[in-house]
């Protein structure tokens, strides 16, 4: 995306140290259990662990065999067992069963549980109840932050979303606060802090608390990061629910990027084996297309393959010496490029095939109509048909949620009929899914017979102290239109473009949704950074239900403070999508600043929907 940046964005800080710290601490913890031992690893921790250590590192620290923590008795014969786990009740019972089975058979071993990123009291309670407290030793591996890429750091806590937003459990807030503290101590001090959302505010307060009592004042250190912006996922569900059309987002939606890498199956590799590929800035092909709208990717790839062909063709007519040079200096790079190019072409092809089959074009049209708020009836029938035809249950759910959020709830008749048909198509047990979606507010029913006066009184309750005089205005925007509509209007999220939206040289962040919609979350970030606070955004804040904050602790004036003032950590509590990442990267290029993404996990509409389902115990 060749945009004319006014000034170049600063390079991101080196986050490699986060990996080294995590690895070193893990090794330190393993050394606390000297001698040979078998290591049991929680499946969710395997990929993150793979990113910071490998088998030989573990072997060097006397790890004998590796097992996966699962619901099966462990065949291990070692005298020392070490468990590397997330703090979960279920896992505690699994471990307790092993310990108790050993006790029954009169076998004595040493057990150590390493909790990542922290231990919960509830886990200890279970160990106590099961009668194994004291038989096991516990430790914490403070592995809060995993750098997935030069500008993405993940906490790898996908359960954060459900735990906080659905169950109302604040268990991860401490982890977030500690993660912020760590980041601040390494790359800060951050001079400006902005945020919106209840969880953002609580995390901020707890982090402040931790900072206050630590002796580390960080004075005199030159910060590498100057700004931080915290946002709750529920400030903007709409963006996360839209189909992604930037390359990285599409790859994620189609193949699922897991911990920064993806498994390309035989349909992509055009061979009989799968290949696991790391997708990051080091991939020279990927780094150039990841943020592009899918339509621009083809052109780029074919240009690349022509160039590559030309470079290979130069061999003809080379003499021996030149050839030797070519082989020793260029061939390796070319081969690497060739390999990547064919993978991404294969991926594009596979995406195209899948999307064409799925009526993707029609679906995008429906999404755009929902975002703009017209043709509601037709969109509803489209969703209905989608359900009737038993097309993907996740997609159907996603579209219903998008309809609900943009319309501020479904009208009762539609809600009932869509729900009934959904249960008939995908199974009655989804009754539980609907209940969850209602609780979290993703799929709701407009209160029956909600008259204008009822809405009005509710609205006036919301606004009394702030804008009493504007009740009528506010009411007008709320009565028929949902908050989303009002916000969308207020922030001009739907670009009005004369003529064709230029996807190859996009004018704004809306390109990540084909020019049809500017992601709300990113727009808020843009506005607040521009205004250095929330002034002038009162109405938007009110529509988003408040909980905004802005702090400037001895922030240097404009110009001072150097590059750090142009580096912003965008913290997404509850997950962040690749579309949002692409949009903010674009904004960064435009404004000459650098965004670093800190998220509880990379998310997508499918992951969000799946988190709402009830699974077997």
């Amino acid at each position, binding site marked *: 995306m060749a945009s004319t940046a006014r000034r170049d964005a600063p390079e991101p800080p080196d986050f490699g140290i986060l990996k080294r710290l995590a690895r070193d601490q893990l090794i330190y913890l393993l050394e606390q259990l000297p001698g040979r031992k078998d290591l049991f690893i929680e499946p969710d921790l395997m990929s993150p662990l793979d990113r910071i250590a490998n088998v030989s590192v573990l072997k060097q620290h006397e790890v004998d065999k590796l097992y996966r923590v699962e619901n099966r008795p462990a065949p291990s014969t070692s005298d020392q067992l070490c468990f590397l786990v997330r703090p979960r009740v279920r896992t505690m019972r699994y471990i307790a069963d092993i310990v108790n089975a050993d006790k029954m058979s009169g076998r004595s071993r040493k057990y150590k549980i390493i909790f990542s990123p922290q231990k919960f009291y509830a886990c200890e309670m279970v160990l106590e109840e099961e009668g194994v407290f004291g038989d096991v030793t516990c430790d914490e591996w403070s592995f809060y932050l995993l750098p997935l890429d030069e500008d993405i750091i993940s906490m790898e806590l996908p359960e954060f979303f459900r735990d906080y937003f659905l169950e109302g459990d604040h268990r991860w807030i401490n982890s977030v606060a500690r993660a912020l503290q760590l980041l601040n101590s390494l790359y800060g001090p951050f001079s400006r802090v902005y945020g919106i959302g209840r969880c953002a505010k609580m995390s901020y307060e707890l982090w402040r*608390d931790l900072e206050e009592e630590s002796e580390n004042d960080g004075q005199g250190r030159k910060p590498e990061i100057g700004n931080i912006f915290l946002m709750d996922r529920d400030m903007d569900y709409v963006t996360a629910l839209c189909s992604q059309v930037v390359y990285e987002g599409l790859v994620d939606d189609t193949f699922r990027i897991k911990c920064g890498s993806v498994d390309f*199956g035989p349909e992509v590799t055009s061979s009989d084996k799968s290949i696991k590929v790391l997708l990051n800035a080091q991939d020279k092909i990927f780094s150039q297309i990841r943020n592009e709208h899918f*339509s621009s990717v083809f052109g780029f790839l074919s240009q690349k393959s022509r160039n590559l062909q030309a470079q290979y063709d130069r061999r003809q007519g080379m003499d021996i010496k030149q050839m030797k040079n070519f082989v020793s200096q260029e061939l390796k790079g070319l081969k690497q490029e060739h390999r990547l190019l064919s993978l991404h072409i294969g991926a594009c092809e596979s995406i195209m095939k899948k999307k064409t089959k799925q009526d993707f074009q029609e679906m995008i049209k429906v999404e755009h109509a929902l975002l*703009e708020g017209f043709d509601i009836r037709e969109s509803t029938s489209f969703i209905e048909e989608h359900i009737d035809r038993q097309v993907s249950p996740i997609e159907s759910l996603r579209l219903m949620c998008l309809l609900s959020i943009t319309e501020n709830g479904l009208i009762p008749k539609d809600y009932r009929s869509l729900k009934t048909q959904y249960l008939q198509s995908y199974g*009655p047990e989804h009754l539980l899914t609907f209940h969850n979606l209602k609780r979290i507010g993703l799929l709701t029913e407009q209160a029956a017979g909600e008259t204008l006066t009822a809405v009005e009184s509710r609205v006036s309750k919301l606004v009394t102290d702030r804008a009493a005089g504007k009740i009528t205005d506010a009411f007008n925007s709320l009565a028929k239109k949902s908050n989303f509509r009002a916000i969308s209007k207020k922030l001009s999220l739907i670009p009005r473009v004369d003529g064709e939206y230029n996807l190859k040289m996009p004018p704004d962040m809306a390109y990540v949704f084909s020019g049809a919609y500017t992601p709300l979350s990113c727009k808020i970030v843009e506005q607040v950074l521009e205004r250095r606070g929330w002034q002038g955004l009162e109405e938007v804040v009110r529509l988003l239900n408040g909980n905004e904050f802005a702090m400037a602790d001895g922030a240097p004036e404009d110009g001072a403070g150097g590059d750090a003032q142009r580096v912003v950590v965008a913290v997404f509590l509850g997950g962040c999508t690749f579309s949002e990442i692409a949009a903010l990267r674009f904004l960064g290029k435009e404004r000459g600043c650098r965004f670093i993404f800190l998220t509880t996990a990379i998310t997508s509409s499918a992951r969000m929907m799946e988190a709402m389902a009830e699974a077997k115990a």
Partner: protein
Amino acid sequence: MSRARADEEEYWHSSKFRAFTFDDEDDELSQLKESKRAVNSLRDIVDDDDDDLEKVSWSGEPVGSISWSIKETASSSSSSLEGRDTSLQKGSSSYAALPKQVSSYSLSSLFKAFSDTGVKNYAPELRRPRAEYKDYSNDWSPRDTVRRMQRGKVCSLERFRSLQDKMVLLDEAVAGHDGNVITAVLIFLKRTLRREVLFRELEVRQVALCHLIHFLKETGEQKLLLDLLRFLDRTEEVALSQYREHLNIQDVEKKREFLKGCIGLPFSAEDISHIQDHYTLLERQIIIETNDRHLAMAGQSEIFRKYPRKASILNMPLVTTLFYSCFYHYTEAEGTFSSPTNLKKTFKIPDKQYVLTALAARAKLRAWEDVDALLTTKNWLGYTKKKAPIGFHRVVEILQRNNAPVQVLQEYVRLVEDVETRLNLATKYKCHDVVIDTYRDLKDRIQLMAYKCKVERGSAEEEKINSLLSNMQIRWKN
């Protein structure tokens, strides 16, 4: 909110969203294919010596990665011991070539160095904050107790004995924002308070209440959870929470019994019918499954011999069951439980859904006359008419997916109402007659002439085009 029709038209016809289409196979995909060819042709030059390829095992995990190694342990633990050893060696040796960036110095000393020099505090949790010097005092205020617990320190809560003290502690925990500590306090309260007292206090403390509910869900204390929900008068949640248990019942007979019991639970009026349906559905499935398994084993029924069942119908959604019934039991009388019409009636399946499913099932069997009958209606005068509640473009799509012959396809393509869609479909599936007739009706001579090159030389279609083009009666628009 709703805009003028004209506005919408303009919106969809504006070029804004045309820049990119997934349907546009001609353009983008061929471009892609070309690039692919180019890249593939280079394969000969780039011999696959894998030197910069990641080593990947059969499962796709890079060899030597932790996930890979775990799979190895898992698979080899059932096989011989020797096998495991070699595989593990392989795992480590493939990494031996890699540069070792592992810290060469002892880690304990590293961490010591950090705290000693105090240059920069990389690992806050390994350091002793000043507050810790008071560790051995027993007189923590509720606030300090909560703070200490937030830092992961063990703290006895036993001295909070009066209800007031307990609640101050709980409120402090909530104010501290750390869910882990809130839950810890709740565990203590749950142990030291009668449940009614605890429930009463939590009723006015929503955040704490959420934590207790979540905790009870996780630890599986179903009885206490239900008591709590009942106390709070959250009857619908009581019902749902009980209903949820059916997910863990494997045995279908037991599950059926359980669901029967669920019907009496205090669901909302709307949900009660869903629960009833769930029960009835499983009941039906059990009957059908028993019968059909028997039929299939006996080998008497042709349909089961020709199309063996791939899976049992138990626990499938209603629509899947309907499909199954349309596939195997289409002609049965309404009286039998397995007949499609019976299902339709029992579960009040809407017409649209019924037709869609039946169509898919019959098309899969290539029973075109059933398809025809399904879409034919008679009016009161006895005239027959084709009608599709789902739109004929969908009918075409379903038939095409099941490789319907052109003659069959053609008939329905012709019935697609929207001219543009009809032309698209007809062209795509080579229903020449429909294309020709449509152009004739549109009086589009130019398109018709252009289409001539798409039909076979000397075919009936070509003849038809020629005769149309030479027909002086038609007033062409161009």
